[in-house]
């Protein structure tokens, strides 16, 4: 008998035994408590005082980190972020590579980077952190070790989320055995076979990687239908957030 499969048989990395490994099917209580809609607040002045903290949370860019040669350059958030008092927040670190001075991706660099990321957990009311790093093939081993290192540094009460290219969640899965609480499949600005992945989601198919089955990452200018409302939705907005744009998203998830 045959079986309907999306991407079956594609090379999986064998699971590696690590003491810090988490069950990717289980989501941490800290992350579970977060609202079902999370707005990404990027490095720009952002006023979200109007959100209802019970239904909308904020994943704000807290650190911009650039790897350059053997250095790790860390910038905290420099732009304003106005929130209501009870807002639920997640701190996000964006990791970029210096295009000119190619990073060494050394162990020292990884340690410094892990320290800078884990340090976000010290921010007020932050018990969830997210790494946004579009690692290329050649950077994956470094990223894998980084995630393990960050996880080791974080208290158990702090959840670790990563953003993931949609291909990582489907046929190019190298993330399933990582010690993370979730991988947010980025369903916008998708290159390569993005259209195919979107079509398959619309047809009701799901991601192969269990870590990718907790949430979606979308953008306000690329609306997606057929997304399970039980999953958390992270939303990027290339424009400023407004009450109406947030309201539209919240309503669409009801």
């Amino acid at each position, binding site marked *: 008998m045959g079986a309907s499969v999306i991407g079956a048989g594609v090379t999986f990395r064998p699971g590696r035994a690590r003491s810090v490994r988490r069950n990717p099917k289980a989501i941490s209580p800290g992350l579970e408590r977060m609202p079902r809609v999370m707005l990404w607040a990027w490095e720009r002045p952002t006023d979200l005082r109007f959100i209802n903290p019970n239904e909308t949370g904020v994943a704000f860019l807290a650190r911009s980190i650039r790897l350059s040669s053997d250095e790790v350059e860390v910038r905290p958030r420099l732009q304003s972020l106005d*929130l209501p008092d009870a807002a639920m*927040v997640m701190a996000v670190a964006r990791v970029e590579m210096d295009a000119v001075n190619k990073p060494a991706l050394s162990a020292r660099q990884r340690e410094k980077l892990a320290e800078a990321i884990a340090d976000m957990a010290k921010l007020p009311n932050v018990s969830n952190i997210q790494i946004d790093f579009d690692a290329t093939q050649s950077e994956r081993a470094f990223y894998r070790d980084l995630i393990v290192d960050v996880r080791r540094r974080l208290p158990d009460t702090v959840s670790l989320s990563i953003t993931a290219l949609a291909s990582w969640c489907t046929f190019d899965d190298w993330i399933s055995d990582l010690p993370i609480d979730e991988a947010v499949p980025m369903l*916008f600005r998708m290159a390569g076979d993005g259209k195919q992945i979107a079509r398959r989601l619309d047809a009701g198919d799901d991601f192969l990687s269990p870590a990718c089955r907790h949430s979606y990452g979308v953008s306000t200018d690329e609306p997606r239908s057929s997304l399970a409302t039980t999953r958390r939705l992270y939303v990027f907005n290339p424009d400023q957030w407004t009450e109406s744009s947030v309201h539209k998203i919240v309503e669409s998830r009801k």
Partner: protein
Amino acid sequence: MIPGNPYKAIIALALVLSVSFILPRRTQACGPFFTEAIFVYSKHPDFPLENFAAGKLGVITPNWARSYLVAAYRNLAGIPLSENEAKAIKSVWDDRLHNAWESNDEQAIKKWTEARKQVPGLAAATTINAYRNREKPHEYESFLNCQPDAFDNAEATLDARIKEFGADSQAVRSWVGAQDTVFANCSEGQHIPVSAASETQDLPPLLRADRTYQIAAANFYATNFDEATKLFDSIAQDKSSPWRGKAAYLAARAMLRKGSLADKEDDGRPALADAETRLNAVLKDKLATAAHEAAARLLNLARLRLHPEEKLHEIAHLLVKKEASPNFKQDVWDYTVLLDKFLGEDSEDEQTKKPQRPSGLTSDDLTDWVLTFEDSSTAAAAHSLDRWKKNKSLPWMVSAISKASGISPEARELLSAAASVDHSSPAFASVAYHSARLLIEGNRARDARTMLDKTLAVDRQNLSPSALNLLLAQRMTLAQNLDEFLHSAQRVPAGFSDDSDGREIPEEETSTKETIKDARLFFDVDAANAFNKSMPASIIEEAANSKALAPNLRRDVAQAAFVRATMIDDRVTANQAAVFLQGVYPQLKEFLTAYLKATTPEARRFAAVFVSLKFPGLRPYVSAGIGRTTALEEIDSYRDNYWCAEPPTPVSGSGAQGEGEEGQPKLKPLRVPEFLQPTQSLAATQFAALQALGTAPNYFCRLAIAWAEKNPADPRAPEALHLAVRSTRYGCTDDQTGRWSKAAYDLLHKQYPNTTWAKATKYWFK
């Protein structure tokens, strides 16, 4: 120590920055990223940008960042940038394109930490973080509290004190201890050194003065700005203090920072006004000349916040005069940031609040031109025309002709003025491009052709690659025969980029070479579209035989002609293409021979499907840009295999207008080249027939099933079924694919259960 140049860090707080140059970016592609050919840069002029600064402007584009428009205006207005100005503005572009990190605080901290090691017996330095978190309700925001100059000044002072008192003296140890306390405030807390009197009575007077200064500085970094101001004011009155000369300036700086860090903009105005008054006083004080340069910079900052419109025009007037600006880079930076502040961001969200645009914003010519040129409204077109008619200046002529329509009454007058623009003028490429556009829009194809041919013959070498490609795109639509078409359809890209962040930054040459091998010429979207949508298969085949085409393009065109012709049963064309393909792709020979030998339409169709199944890179379309880089016989890892019903189109290129919904390219309406107009009906019929066959995997399954049912003994049949199922996994699929995949899978296992092909086919795919 407090730095002398606080400029950029404070401006980050002082102004609402445009998102176009702040870091980092999450606005663009989410990858994976592939090398793309860029035929016409849309976000900025061509590289190297030095050429642009030097007046080789290409076709000036309204959606370039305003800093490019400033350089364009200067060149068009006959005030070319001096060498220094060109370097300065190039530095602005570099910083913004490469998201330059503005400060080198970590290096400065490192240097200070090293310098501190000169003093023996000190405890190891604690880690210094130059950024300080703000207090609630701004607890997630930081600011660069201790700037590089602070550490440089500390290092210089330490050297001086060591020279005077000795590295192992108690005086120096005491000084370093206090300085450690000062820097402890950089990232958090309230750490104030004890007064000299409380510590010891033995400190020399110089060290006592230092301590008073360190206490003031500690208050500054601890954000006790009023206290810091009071202490600096008192140092300014202390004739014996070595810090007297800069204390008044530092008091002003404390006020400026107080104003910049206020919770609300209005709350900060009194402190900013105080800073402005103090800085004006410093600049008048002949005893404080050492602080004048820094004070002038700070005053500029204060005025940017307090009187932005006045400051904008002030800068605009400086920018249009040769060498008038003492700091051209900073002025271009401030000018464009101020415009961002006044105009807000471009947004498609109607609810996005736009700042109130001051009525006098366009009262200087530079600002008027920049804002009009980037505006696509009819009012902007009318204003450009009006300004040009009044002043006959080149900037306004370029703006007017860029916005005019070929059927407007002014077109003739503009064309006439354009004809008199010298070929060496920085306006030439823009004027040539828009003249051709006006002629085409005005149904003067012959004149447009003559003009373009002359320009392409005479000025080709002087045009930027993007400008050349724009003119070639125009010329392609005017082609009267295939040869003309092919000469203007194949183009050298202006650059190659993975465009991972939407900034069209060229990738390293070695990476590009790995991807494109020896190919030099490619089709842009408009040319590929002409092949794919407006050309009958027989003309595509004719193109493949043309020696005017580059070898890589001939191969691509030939395979498109073959696959397409087989799908629409154009046997003559398919046979001719097959013969050509045998020569350029020896690996296809066996399968093409089978096609050529097939005797019935069904047998030919199956033979064609079989070769397409064996070679996942074959497709009935010509590729735009670099195209598929995986070998023809290999499966591409990113599923660029077995075609979709609709030809693929990259986002960039002269046929595209950026992104539409869901990140897909928004195409310009296709303008059919003249020589193809008589065959449009045939081309449209063929294209519709191709589309009706659907996505390749569905088509393959259907034909493989039909062939296997009628010809069960053909040894190719089970392999074709296996490959058809494989194509539903790796190829372009739609909502019918699952049905076809299952049908092929079922037939394979039912009809050929013991074959290696059935055993190798474990799943079907949807």
